[in-house]
């Protein structure tokens, strides 16, 4: 499984190379386009500050008070029986509901346990591989006025469950448990 992390290392430089060469070939003003797109990035980073401040304050309060520990002790035996650290459970629960809240939790887990720990890696893959089902559902259906959702919510949430299980199994296989 070592070669997978090797592919990961080469993946990004190759992708950047393709984008730059293809842009040059198509005579896109590459540098100027890059700068224009980059401005968007600054806007996004600043616009998520309030979301993260709100969520991280709630999480740090929840943890500092000892409430998180109590909750963990309560569900730990169940989760550990299937090989999942209890610390990851809040992230799993919030991921389909709020993207920014999940982002806050992911960064919190990495701050506490380190990005290269099992929990840090699992949080990374979970964050990257699932999407905010409720957000997509509300925005897309809301925008065009769909009132009857049919099976969309059920299908979306079940797909999330598959994604979460897949993330856990893949991280276990690629990086091992520790």
């Amino acid at each position: 499984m070592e070669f997978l992390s090797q592919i990961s290392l080469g993946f990004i430089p190759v992708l950047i190379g393709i984008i730059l060469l293809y842009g040059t070939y198509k005579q896109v003003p590459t540098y100027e386009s890059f700068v224009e797109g980059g401005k968007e990035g600054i806007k996004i980073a600043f616009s998520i500050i309030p979301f993260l401040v709100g969520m991280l304050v709630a999480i740090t309060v929840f943890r500092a008070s000892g409430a998180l520990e109590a909750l963990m002790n309560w569900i730990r035996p169940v989760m550990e029986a299937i090989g999942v650290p209890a610390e990851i459970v809040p992230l799993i629960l919030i991921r389909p509901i709020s993207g920014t809240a999940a982002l806050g939790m992911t960064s919190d887990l990495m701050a506490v346990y380190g990005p290269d720990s099992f929990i840090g890696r699992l949080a990374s893959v979970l964050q990257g591989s699932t999407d905010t089902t409720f957000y997509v559902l509300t925005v897309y259906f809301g925008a065009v006025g769909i009132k009857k959702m049919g099976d969309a919510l059920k299908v979306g949430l079940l797909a999330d469950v598959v994604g979460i299980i897949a993330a856990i199994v893949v991280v276990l296989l690629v990086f091992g448990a520790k």
Partner: protein
Amino acid sequence: MVNYIWVFMTIVGFIFAMINGTMTEVNKAIFDGAKEAVTLCIGLISILVFWLGMMRIAQESGLLEVLSKLFRPLVRKLFPDVPTNHPAMGYILSNMIANMFGLGNAATPLGIKAMEELKLLNGGKNSASRSMVTFLAINTASITIIPTTVIAIRMNYNSASPTEIVVPTLIATIISMLGAVMIDRYFYNRRRRKG
């Protein structure tokens, strides 16, 4: 829903602090949490600027369109109700490609356009058609090639290898995408049997 969870965590935290006598820690946590959040956002700027800059080049050079054409045969199988040259198909494809590259902001308007077209195809009814449910399922389980934000956070916390999670993420997300398609088919067949 988030509203309830947010208030719940804060209030339960305060109640626990009263019982456990951890009020000092909780007071400190309020300001630590806020500071941590702002520091994180500042740290995210570098990578967001870089990737959104790259993606703008990919968009303007037509690279995203080339990718859409590549995936057309596959998408035709997923949406048998949508005629091949219908504008909905183009929007669906561009939305999926934008999602793959973590372009959430670019993906959303494309997704909404796709929904509008799908609604027209469905005679403008306000209930979700088969294709709409499929489109949503694929969207929530969309394949991710570059998990930009996650890489940024990992860099921020000094990971030895911030990008080592790219391939595992790709594998996990392909599995969840396949899962979404199968679950969607299952529910579609069930609806059809019920008539």
